[in-house]
């Protein structure tokens, strides 16, 4: 199963295994699931992620049949299963508490579901043996659940729920009771088993690392709604809301007001190098000064003239009214040059993609350039979500589109990496992460040090403030 190929959610032809159609679940006045519509495809490892009380467990219990939707439909292979009792569904669940039958041996626990189907004895025996092998429990078949370890119990629960070869396996916080090391091992085991059996897995978890590790897609939930569904990398790199950015991983949230940057950079300026020897704070301040005039992109007359004279033979006709578009997250390498219209006397010495936004976030601080920001957010209150590992930290001011000066308040040493808590002038705390490539004794940044944080113009994600 090649990872690059497996993306049925992008294939309009793919038939979903599970379809939620406007599903609402209320408990009295409380709405646990609010008009939810979502497709889940065969062989997916789908993670429902959210804080406790967000409705993820209710969603799972509706799939298992322990709760019925108040409104809407849940389809399995196109058949509405909303009101089918749990014992009549081709869906099995692995419970958070494992729910192993304490009076039955490991073998009998795994055989429980098969015996209910009244299958022939030798067939049951063969299937149980297979499950025991798959979960490496052969030696414990005759033990009672209280005679084996937590990790083994977890595997018995998995074997029991897989024994009936369900179309869909639900995992309710399956690894919550295991310690970190065992949990990480088991995550890979789960993925391995999922691939071997080809079963569709839906996992409920509040552990975002777990969700990111195992899942093909992650659905982040909040208050009964799915806020974002995407592959783990998209969820992490391109969250669609402050909630998702904040929930997944560590993040710096810098609030401010957006201001659109000019999108047009005449290509001929590529040829013109901009040797700007002085990367002093001064240019940054001046850059933010003329901001109000640049609130909206203006037609670039000088650029037009240059184009007509020099470049029209190469690049063709000047396009009038080019539609405003969202720059891709990784903006093309178009060095920002002395755009003729820019009044700023000393542009950045670095290559900054054009367009996007500038964010005024603090009085007396240079605006942050976010070249990947949506210009449509111009004038809005926005939040720049910035992952700590995307920030550089140095004692001298580096050459970067965005630099912030601050003081190290705290250092969290995690062995492989260190997280620096830096207080920016003005009082905002920003976390920056750096790999500990040198031995700790040789670390040159320490508490109370004046440092420069730097990040590229596309390092952050600009989100509308909620």
């Amino acid at each position, binding site marked *: 199963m090649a990872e690059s190929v497996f993306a049925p959610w992008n294939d309009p032809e793919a038939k979903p295994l599970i379809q939620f159609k406007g599903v609402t679940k209320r408990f009295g006045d409380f709405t646990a699931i609010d008009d939810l519509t979502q497709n889940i495809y065969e062989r997916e490892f789908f993670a429902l992620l959210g804080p406790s009380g967000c409705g993820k467990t209710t969603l799972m219990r509706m799939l298992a049949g*322990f709760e019925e939707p108040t409104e809407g439909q849940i389809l399995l292979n196109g058949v509405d299963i909303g009101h089918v009792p749990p014992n009549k569904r081709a869906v099995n669940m692995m419970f958070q508490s494992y729910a192993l039958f304490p009076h039955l041996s490991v073998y009998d626990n795994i055989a*429980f579901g098969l015996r209910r189907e009244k299958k022939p004895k030798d067939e049951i025996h063969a299937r149980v043996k297979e499950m025991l092998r798959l979960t490496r429990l052969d030696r414990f078949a005759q033990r009672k659940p209280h005679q084996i370890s937590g990790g083994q119990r977890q595997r018995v629960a998995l074997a029991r729920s897989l024994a009936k070869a369900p179309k869909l396996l639900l995992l309710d916080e399956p690894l919550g009771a295991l310690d970190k090391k065992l949990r990480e091992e088991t995550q890979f085991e789960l993925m391995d088993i999922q691939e071997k059996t080809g079963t569709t897995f839906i996992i409920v978890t509040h552990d975002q690392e777990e969700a990111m590790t195992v899942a093909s897609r992650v659905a982040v939930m909040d208050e009964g709604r799915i806020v974002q569904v995407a592959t783990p990398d998209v969820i992490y790199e391109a969250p669609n809301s402050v909630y998702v950015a904040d929930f997944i991983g560590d993040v710096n949230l810098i609030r401010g007001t957006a201001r659109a940057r000019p999108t047009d950079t005449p290509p001929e300026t590529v040829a013109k190098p901009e040797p700007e020897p002085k990367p002093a704070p001064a240019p940054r301040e001046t850059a933010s000064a003329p901001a109000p005039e640049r609130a909206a992109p203006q037609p670039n007359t000088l650029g037009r003239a240059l184009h007509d004279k020099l470049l029209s033979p190469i690049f063709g006709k000047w396009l009038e009214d080019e539609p405003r578009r969202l720059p891709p997250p990784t903006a093309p390498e178009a060095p920002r040059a002395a755009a003729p219209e820019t009044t700023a006397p000393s542009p950045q010495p670095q290559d900054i993609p054009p367009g996007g936004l500038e964010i005024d976030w603090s009085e007396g601080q240079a605006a942050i350039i976010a070249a990947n920001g949506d210009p449509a957010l111009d004038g809005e209150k926005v939040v720049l979500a910035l992952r700590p590992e995307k920030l550089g930290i140095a004692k001298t001011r580096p050459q970067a589109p965005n630099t912030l000066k601050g003081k190290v308040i705290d250092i969290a040493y995690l062995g492989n990496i260190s997280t620096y808590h830096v207080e920016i002038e003005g009082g905002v705390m920003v976390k920056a992460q750096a790999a500990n490539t040198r031995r700790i004794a040789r670390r040159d940044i320490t508490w109370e040090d004046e440092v420069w944080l730097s990040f590229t113009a596309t390092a952050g994600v600009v989100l509308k403030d909620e």
Partner: protein
Amino acid sequence: MRRAVLIAVPYLWLLALFLVPFIIVLKISLSDIALARPPYAPQLDLNEGWAGIRAFFAGLDFENFTFLTTDDLYWKAYLSSVRIAAVATLCTLLVGYPIAYGMARAPHEWRPTLLMLVILPFWTSFLIRVYSWIGILSTEGVLNQFLMGIGLIGEPLTILNTNTAVYIGIVYTYLPFMILPIYSALEKMDESLLEAAEDLGSSRLAAFWLVTIPLSRNGIVAGCFLVFIPSIGEFVIPSLLGGSDTLMIGKVLWEEFFSNRDWPVASAVAVVLLLILIIPIVLFQRSEEKAREAGR
């Protein structure tokens, strides 16, 4: 040292209040009836010294136990007691289990109240409660009047002074002893086990038989012994509610003791009853031990 004292207390208790009385009863059962006070012989006379002790032991024999085997009354009474106790225990289980189940499934905030209601009857005297059943079950009693009032029966049922009344009395009296252990077993049960059973394809009823019953087994066993053991020797209920044909060993014992004033035979009956009861008590203890091991 402190440990020794702690262990000694229950043993002293058993010695003084169980073993010593039992030896006295055993001694009487080996004696002969006599017109004296107390009404049996021989008596130990320590003034006569060694000869007195020898004469005392020479006077003891198993005559009374042999006598119990010669009269049908006794073994029939034992058998009938066991049968009545067994049937009553089964009835108590059938009534008590659903109550315990309902209590264990009730909302958390209700459970203390429900427990209280189960224990509440103990606040009145046992005798008064059994007497009040006479008022309910008699021919002119509340039950008959009610049933005739709603037109269900034409003439009063004869319930009082039958074995049925004895069953009703035992079930009523010993119900809490059945409910409490079953409740405590059911309450501990993880409800997700039932969901797991359903998820794996069993119906609700099958889940009950395959999961709930096996997991409450210890409670059921404990409850049954707690009802069975005391009801074998029950005297008050059969004598107040039972009829002339209700044969129970407790009643026989009482009659031997107070009507016949034959203390030695009455003691022999008591010793045999105790021996009969030891069997279920040992079984009970073994099952408790097993439960402890499993519940580790």
